[in-house]
C-alpha cells in the first residue's frame, strides 16, 4: 500500500437517518485502473463524491501522494488533479467542443490592450488534446449538443486531461454507450493507463471489470468488503462479495403452462420504427423481444400501450379487437407497461411509494373520487412485502430509493392494476445483481403461477435467452426473426439483430 497515489482510510459518512459509509477504505496506484463495484446503495457514489470533494467525510483520512489532504469543495479536488466524469455529463450543449474543453481556463491573448480569448490557440490545443487520445474524427468547432453520447464523453475526458488530471473517476461510463463507443472508450482508458493516469472505474458490468481493471474493490451496505487483483478473482467470487451470499441461479426460470393467446398484434404500423409488426403473446408465456438500440422494440411496445398510437393495424386482447389510442385505454384493457426510462417514464420520483403504487389504479382505491389513504397504504405495504422493497415505509419518497427498489415500485404499480399483459422494457437495466435476480424470480412466478403474459424487451442476450419462452428479434422497425427457447443461441439472435451483413466480430461485440 505504500505506492498508493491516493489513499482513503477509515472513512465514515452519515446522512440524516443513514450511515452511508462505515470505516471504508480505498486506494489507487499510479497508472492503474481500479474498479469500484457494489450493489446500488452500497456507497460507491458517496465514496467518489468524497474523493471529488462534493462531500466531506465525518471521520477518516485522505492521503494524496503521501500528504494528508482535505477537500472542502470540488474545486480543491480539481486543482489537486482529480477529475470526475459523471453519468450525467456536465457539458454545455450550445458551446463548441473546444470551448467545452477549455471552459474556465481558456488560453488568453492581448488584443488592442484587452485580454481576450485566443480562439486559434484554443482550437489548436483542443485538436492536439484529442489527437493525443487517438481521437481524430471530432471537429473541435462542432457544437457539443450535436454530438452523440460517446463523443460527448470523449470531450469530457479531454476536458479532464486539459486540467492535467492524474486521477480520473469514471462513474458508469458505459451505461449509455453503444458497443462501438464502448470499444473506443476502453482503448482510451488503456492509453491513459499507459501514460500513468490512475483511473477509478465504477461499473455494474462485471465483464468490463475483467476486461479493463487491474484491481477491484467491493463495497456492500457502506462497508469495505475487500480488494482483489483482477487476475486472481472470478465473477462468482465478486458477486458473492457484492451481495453477501452466493446466487446459485441468476436467471431462475420456472416451467409454465402456456395458455390462450392474450395479445395478438396484427400488422401494427407506426413508421419509422414500427413497420408491419405481427406477433402474439400467450398467457403464462414470457416473450423476449431482442434487437439493437434503435431497432424499434420500445416503439412497438409504445404502439401497443397507446403512447404512439398505431397508424394502421389491429390489437386483439383475449380474443377481442380493441382500439388503443392513449395509455389510459391500454390500462383499462389490462395492459401494464414498465418503461425503459424508470426515472422519467416509470415513476413520479418526487412522490411517495404509496402515491406511485396507486397511480394506475386510483379508481379502485377511491370512493366517489375521494382517495382512501388507508387503502393506498395497504396496497403499498403489500407491495413492499411482496416484492421486498427496501424502504422506511409507504410514505418514503421514491427518489430516495436505490435503482432496484425504484424498479420494484414501478412493477408493483402495474401488478396492482392486475393486468393480463405486462410489457417490461429493459426490466433490469442499471440495477444491481441482487435486485436483478429478484425481478427475474418475480417475472417467472407471475408467468408460471398467475398466468400473466409478459413481453420482455432486453438488450442483454443472456437475459433474453434465459427468461424467454420464445424470442422475437427486431431490426429497423421490422420483426426479422422468431426463435423457440430450445433452439435459440446467442449467435443466432445476434445474427438476426445485426442483419445479413454482420461480421463475426460485431456479433461477438453484442454478446
Amino acid at each position, binding site marked *: 500500500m505504500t505506492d498508493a497515489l491516493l489513499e482513503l482510510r477509515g472513512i465514515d459518512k452519515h446522512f440524516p437517518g443513514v450511515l452511508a459509509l462505515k470505516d471504508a477504505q480505498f486506494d489507487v496506484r499510479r497508472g492503474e485502473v481500479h474498479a469500484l463495484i457494489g450493489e446500488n446503495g452500497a456507497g460507491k457514489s*458517496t465514496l467518489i463524491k468524497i474523493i471529488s470533494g462534493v462531500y466531506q467525510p465525518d471521520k477518516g483520512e485522505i492521503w494524496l501522494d503521501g500528504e494528508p489532504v482535505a477537500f472542502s469543495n470540488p474545486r480543491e479536488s480539481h486543482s489537486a488533479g482529480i477529475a470526475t466524469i459523471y453519468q450525467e455529463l456536465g457539458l454545455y450543449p450550445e458551446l463548441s467542443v473546444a470551448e467545452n474543453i477549455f471552459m474556465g481556463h481558456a488560453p488568453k491573448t492581448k488584443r488592442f490592450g484587452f485580454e481576450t480569448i485566443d480562439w486559434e490557440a484554443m482550437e489548436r490545443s483542443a485538436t492536439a488534446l484529442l489527437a493525443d487520445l487517438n481521437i481524430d474524427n471530432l471537429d473541435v468547432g462542432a457544437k457539443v449538443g450535436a454530438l452523440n453520447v460517446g463523443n460527448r464523453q470523449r470531450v469530457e475526458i479531454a476536458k479532464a486531461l486539459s486540467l492535467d488530471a492524474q486521477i480520473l473517476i469514471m462513474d458508469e461510463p458505459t451505461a449509455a454507450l453503444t458497443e462501438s463507443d464502448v470499444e473506443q472508450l476502453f482503448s482510451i482508458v488503456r492509453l491513459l493507463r499507459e501514460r500513468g493516469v490512475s483511473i477509478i472505474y465504477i461499473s455494474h458490468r462485471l465483464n468490463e471489470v475483467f476486461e479493463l481493471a487491474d484491481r477491484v474493490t467491493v463495497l456492500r451496505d457502506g462497508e469495505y468488503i475487500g480488494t482483489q487483483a483482477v487476475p486472481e478473482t472470478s465473477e462468482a467470487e465478486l458477486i458473492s462479495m457484492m451481495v453477501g451470499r452466493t446466487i446459485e441461479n441468476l436467471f431462475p426460470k420456472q416451467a409454465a403452462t402456456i395458455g390462450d393467446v392474450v395479445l395478438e398484434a396484427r400488422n401494427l404500423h407506426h413508421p419509422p420504427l414500427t413497420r408491419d409488426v405481427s406477433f402474439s403473446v400467450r398467457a403464462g408465456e414470457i416473450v423476449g423481444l431482442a434487437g439493437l438500440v434503435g431497432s424499434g422494440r420500445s416503439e412497438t411496445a409504445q404502439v401497443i400501450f397507446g403512447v404512439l398510437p398505431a397508424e394502421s393495424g389491429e390489437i386483439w386482447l383475449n380474443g377481442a379487437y380493441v382500439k388503443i389510442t392513449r395509455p389510459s385505454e391500454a390500462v383499462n384493457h389490462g395492459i401494464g407497461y414498465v418503461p425503459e426510462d424508470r426515472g422519467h417514464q416509470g*415513476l413520479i420520483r418526487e412522490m411517495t411509494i404509496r402515491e406511485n403504487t396507486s397511480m394506475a389504479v386510483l379508481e379502485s382505491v377511491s370512493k366517489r373520487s375521494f382517495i382512501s389513504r388507508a387503502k393506498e397504504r395497504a396496497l403499498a405495504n403489500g407491495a413492499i412485502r411482496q416484492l421486498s422493497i427496501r424502504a422506511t415505509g409507504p410514505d418514503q419518497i421514491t427518489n430516495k430509493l436505490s435503482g432496484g427498489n425504484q424498479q420494484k415500485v414501478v412493477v408493483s404499480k402495474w401488478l396492482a392494476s392486475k393486468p393480463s399483459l405486462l410489457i417490461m422494457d429493459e426490466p433490469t437495466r442499471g440495477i444491481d445483481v441482487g435486485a436483478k435476480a429478484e425481478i427475474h424470480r418475480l417475472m417467472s412466478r407471475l408467468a408460471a403461477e398467475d398466468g400473466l403474459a409478459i413481453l420482455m424487451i432486453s438488450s442483454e442476450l443472456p437475459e433474453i435467452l434465459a427468461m424467454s419462452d420464445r424470442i422475437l428479434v427486431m431490426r429497423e422497425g421490422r420483426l426479422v426473426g422468431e426463435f423457440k427457447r430450445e433452439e435459440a443461441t446467442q449467435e443466432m439472435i445476434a445474427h438476426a439483430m445485426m442483419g445479413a451483413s454482420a461480421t463475426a466480430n460485431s456479433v461477438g461485440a453484442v454478446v
Partner: protein
Amino acid sequence: MQAEKSKPRNPTVSEKLRHLLISQEGVLFIIMLASVLFLATRTDKFLTVDNLLQQGRFMAEVGLIAIPMTYIIITGGIDLSVGSILGLTAIVLGWTWQELGFPLELAIITGIISGTVAGFVNGLFIVRVGVPPLIMTLATLALYRGLAEGISQARSARGYPEWFFQLGQGELLGIPTQLWLLIIAVVIFAIVLARTRLGRALYAIGNNETGARFSGLTVNRHLLFIYTFSGFMSAVAGYIFVSRVSTTRSDMGTGIELDVIAAVVLGGTSIFGGTGSIPGTIIGVVLIQLLKNGLVLTGVTSDATIVVIGSVLIFAILVNNFIQRKRDES
C-alpha cells in the same frame, strides 16, 4: 443509500403541532399574524370588524381566481389571461343586457359562459396544439382584452337594478355576500385538491407529466379542465366585480393576474409545479390584501406601500425556503 428499518408509530399531538407550524402554510400564517399585530399597533382603524369585512369584500375576486391558478401552477402551467377574461365577462354581461336587451339573468349567464369558453379555448390550444401555457395565455391576455374593448366601444353600462348589487355590495348574516362565496369555494376546492383523484393527478402531472401519462392518467383531459375552470372562476369574479362597482368597463381586471400569481406563489406553490395547496394560496391572498390596506391606513403613501409589499413577499419566501431546507435536512 440504505434505508433504516424503523417501526412506524403514530405522531404525538405536540409533534403534529410542530409539524404544522414549520409547514409552508404554518410559516406564512405566522408571518401574517405578525403583520396584522404590527399594523394594529400603528392605527386603530385597521383591526376593526368593519374594516376586516370590507377587506374580505375586496379579496373575493383575487381569491376566487387564485383557486384555479393554484391548480394550474401545480401542473407546471400558468394562466396570464385571467384579468382579460374577467374584463371580457363584464363587457359581455353589460353589452348583452344594455345593447341586445337580454334579461339581466340571461346576460349574467351569457357573460359567465363567455368567460368559461375563453378558458376552454386556452386549454384546447395548450393541449391539442401544444402551445406552451405562458405563450398561449399571453396571447389571449391581449386577444380577450381586445375583444372586450371592441365590443364595448368605450361605452360603459350602468343603471343595473337593485337586486344585481346583492352579490357585490350586499351582506348575508352580517358578512359580505361574495366572501361567503369565496369561503365555500375555498373549502370545496381545497378538499378536491388534497383528497380526490383530480388533485392527485394534478400533482403527478406537475412533477412528471410523462410519468403521469405513462401511468395511464388522462393528462390532456385534466389540463383542459383546469384551464376551463380558470375561465369560469375568472368569469364569476367578473360578475362580482361589476356588481361591486355598479358599472361595466372594458379595462376591468387589468393586472389582476399578477396579484393572483403573487398570492399563489407566496402561498408556497412552486412556479415549477408539483407542490402547493389551497390553504397556502388563501393565506397569501389575505396577507397581501391586509398589508395593502393596513399600510394605507397607517398613512404610508401608495408607492411606498408597493415597495413594502414587495419586500414582505421576498422576506416571506426567504424565511420559508430557509425553514423548508432545515426541515429537509433533519
